Structure formats: C-alpha cells, structure tokens
C-alpha cells in the first residue's frame, strides 16, 4: 500500500467521523457509558451477557420490561420486590434500588439496554428519565 493511499484512507476516516451526525455520536457515547454502568451496577446478578442466573435472577435479554421505559426507570430507581414474570418464568429475588445513579446514568443505561438487548435503537434522554414520576 502506498504512503499516499494510506494517508488518503486516514483522511477518509476523519471525514467520515466528522460527517457522522452529532446525534449519532451522542448515541454511541450513551451506549458506551451505559455499558460501563451496566457492568458496575447490574451485571453481578443479570450477567455480563444479560442472561441472568438460572431461576434466581431474570434475564434482561428478551425481557418485555425493556418495552416500558417508564416502568424500567422506576425499577432502577426504587428497586423491585415480590414475584415477577420474565420470559415465561417466575422470579422472586429482591432487586436493590440503584441509589448512586443520576438521571443521566439511568438514561445512558437504558439506552445501552435497548441497544444491546431491546428492539429500539433510540436514545433515552435525561429528560425522559427525569420526567418519570415514580411512587
């Protein structure tokens, strides 16, 4: 590969990133930060691969809870107690409230969850989280 060709490739890449929409860059940032937050706060129980742990902790992958953003925000904020049904199985293990997470963290976390295991590739904004009224 000639020097010139290599350089033009680098330039092309630079242009490509520059041209990527601001929104897309922000989305990518949210997904990356969200992945870190997931690893730190959620993966112990739900697993790095989102598959949960046997019949003890429910999977995130394939869970219908991902479809209800408001409910998800409240579960993350307040934790969850009592039996729930996920993907046809009953789980009954207490989930603690993620007290250390700010609205931005939760927005990034849910953006990541949806990106990785949900169907929506849409960003969840801080306002989407802050606006949810939980009991």
């Amino acid at each position, binding site marked *: 590969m000639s020097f010139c060709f290599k350089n033009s490739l680098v330039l092309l890449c630079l242009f490509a990133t520059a041209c990527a929409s601001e929104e897309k860059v922000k989305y990518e940032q949210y997904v990356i930060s969200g992945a870190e937050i997931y690893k730190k706060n959620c993966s112990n129980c739900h697993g790095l691969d989102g598959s949960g742990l046997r*019949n*003890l902790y429910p999977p995130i992958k394939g869970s219908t809870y991902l479809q209800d953003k408001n409910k998800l925000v409240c579960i993350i904020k307040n934790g969850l107690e009592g039996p729930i049904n996920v993907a046809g199985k009953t789980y009954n293990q207490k989930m*603690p409230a993620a007290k250390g997470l700010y609205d931005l963290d939760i927005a990034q976390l849910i953006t990541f969850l949806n990106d990785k295991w949900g169907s929506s590739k849409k960003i969840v904004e801080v306002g989407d989280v802050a606006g949810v009224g939980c009991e």
Partner: protein
Amino acid sequence: MKRFSIFGLLIFWSLAIWSCRDSNRKLPYIGQHDVNEKGDSVFHTIPDFKFVNQDGDTLTQEAFKGKIYIADFFFTSCPTICPVMKTQMLRIYEKFKDNPELGILSHTIDPRHDSVVVLKAYKEKLGVNTNQWQFVTGEQEKIYEIAQKSYMVSAMEDKEAVDEGGFVHSGAFVLVDKNRNIRGVYDGTKEKEVNRLIKDIELLLQK
C-alpha cells in the same frame, strides 16, 4: 557439535516439562503450623461444626468425611459479589457433579433472613438438586467464628454497608482436604482464580 547441543536442549526440555507436570505439583498447607510432642507437623485444621442445612437437617463435619470440600460464605439477598460467586461455584459443581469425593458447603452469614426455607428455595432456583452442595444456616456467632478463625475469611455484619446489603464478607472459596486442612484460598469472584481452584481440586483428588 551442533547435533550434540540440540540433543542437550532436548534433554533440558524434557526435564523442564517433566518437572512442570501438574501431578508433581504440591499444594501448600495454609494457616499456622504447630509441632506435636512426637515432633510431627500439625497443620491448621477445621474443627467440628454443627449447622442446619436447607432441608432442616443437622449437618456436621461427618457429611464431608473422606471428601475434600470447598467452603464459602454468602447471603441470599446479597446484591454484590454473591451472584458472581455462585456463578463460579456452579462451574465447579457442574464439573465435579456426582463425584462422591467432592463436596461444597455454602454458609449464610445472614441467618436471620436466610432460614431453612429460604435456603431451600435458593438452592432449587440455582438448579442444584443433589446433596453434594449443602447450604447451611445456624447461630450467627458460630458462623462468623468458623469463618474468621477456621476458614480464615472475613464475614461480619455491618449496618453501614448499605450498598453491600448490610454485611461485609470475602468472596473466598476455601479448599479443604480429607484431613480438614486448608490447601488453598481462591477469589470466588474471578474466573481465572476458579480455573486454578479446579486444577487444584483435580490434583487433590488424584492423591
């Protein structure tokens, strides 16, 4: 001359490989060593114990007679390291399933919450359906004492440790041999450490 040196290298290699062979490896004895009146070494030993298992039955050291076993300390409502520990312990359980010479003993450090019923449900939900892996509860003091003094791992209640679920404990897996001596302590939250433990179990089982 050249052929000679290649030959020498081969000998060196085989020696090196032979000496590294896993079966020649020896596991250390962990803990204080004493010497008895006969002049023999006496190793740190797990004393007799008496707890209650997930079926409500009394469980003593007799359950592990003639077996090596792995001990750990956890609690069912633990939001931090316990699920990871259990994921790793499941690897060991699956690997040595139905091996009568290996047992697993998980102690709860939250006996007020982790009753017999809770432990039974927990065991079932983990998919553990043999007696090989026992979950025990008992007097909190007795559990903390055996953890700290005998298995030499930390386990205590700490109401300040809210994020950890109110308890502080180590994620250690303790490998105990047939003579109730400790032969290894491993971080049960790390896959690599548990790989090492699995190798050490295989080594102990050969003896």
